[in-house]
């Protein structure tokens, strides 16, 4: 038994391949046999993974969901930003440059609109919950953009650590919400073409959420959504602590 523990500990990434492979195998089977293919296996696998992430958090009490349990620690390497970004770039080999150029305008419009909608929504809700100072409002609004924009903005403005933690929590909830609701609502909102996927990436902005949501909807759309979503966090870090903060301060 001790040898097995040492083996798993030394080969975390390989163990992660095995775990994800097993989960995908089971969910594919479930999708085909029980749901007759109505919900894709990958969507179920991603949703199950979120539940495992929750359970991992309850059991280990760490910050990396399931990956905080020694047996599963390779998951944080396989699912970390390096492999994620590398694989997203690889999806570009299946994308068409012509289509990306053709939809560049709607992508840019949605990027600006997206940051505006999420910031405004976050600030509005924080106001309703009783926050009144520009720094906290701005940090929570930035957290509603992504879980990176929140702490970057809070750090730049000198927000309290509770507010910064709250902004990270808000951003992670957003990622989860986009992951779950994208495949459910895709048809109803017209998310079916590469151009629409580019607008979607700009509008939602969370690279992880957009990537996971589109993967569960239609893997062919992933590169188009990812190519705009990747500009969202940078743009958010640029305007939230500067322009948006100044406007907020002026209004309050």
């Amino acid at each position: 038994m001790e040898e097995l523990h040492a083996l798993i500990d030394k080969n975390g990434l390989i163990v992660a391949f095995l775990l994800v492979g097993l989960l995908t195998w089971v969910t594919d089977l479930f999708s085909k046999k029980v749901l007759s293919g109505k919900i894709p296996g990958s969507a179920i696998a991603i949703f199950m993974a979120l539940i495992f992430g929750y359970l991992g958090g309850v059991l280990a009490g760490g910050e990396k969901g399931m990956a905080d349990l020694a047996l599963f620690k390779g998951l944080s390497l396989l699912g970390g930003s390096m492999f994620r970004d590398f694989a997203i770039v690889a999806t570009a080999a299946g994308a068409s440059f012509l289509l990306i150029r053709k939809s560049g305008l709607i992508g840019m419009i949605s990027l600006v609109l997206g940051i505006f909608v999420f910031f405004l929504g976050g600030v509005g809700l924080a106001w309703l919950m009783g926050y009144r100072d520009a720094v906290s409002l701005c940090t929570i609004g930035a957290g509603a953009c992504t879980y990176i924009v929140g702490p970057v903005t809070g750090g730049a403005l000198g927000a309290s650590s509770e507010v910064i933690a709250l902004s990270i929590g808000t951003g992670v909830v957003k990622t989860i919400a986009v992951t779950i609701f994208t495949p459910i609502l895709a048809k109803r909102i017209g998310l079916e073409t590469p151009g629409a996927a580019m607008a979607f990436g700009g509008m939602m902005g969370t690279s992880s959420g957009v990537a996971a949501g589109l993967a569960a909807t239609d893997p062919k759309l992933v590169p188009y959504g990812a190519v705009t979503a990747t500009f969202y966090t940078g743009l958010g870090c640029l305007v939230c602590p500067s322009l948006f903060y100044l406007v907020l301060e002026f209004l309050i």
Partner: protein
Amino acid sequence: MINGLALLSFSYLLGMWTGDLLGTMLGIDANVGGVGFAMLFLILIKEWFMKKGWWKADLEFGIEFWNKLYIPIVIAMAASLNVKSALSSGLLAILAGTIPVFLAFWVFKVLVRSFKTT
């Protein structure tokens, strides 16, 4: 196979570097569009290689493998998210994390529809 993988790595590193430089230029401590630039570089390199007749099935396999690995990576990512603390960081985090998402779904629907009609 390995030359395709090397090409992918080259695009990735070049794109990330561009994103970092752009971030520094704008005076913010974040990568601006690194992944997006990397994707554009890869697409441009592919077009150029195809024109030259250098784009071979064996080369594409090295990139295709990572393309296919993408969904498993997303699954691993979902399992290593901090779901518990996100859900327990309070009502505001849950509301501010979900309500704007629905608002954005609606704005998206209107935007896509208005672009189709024009």
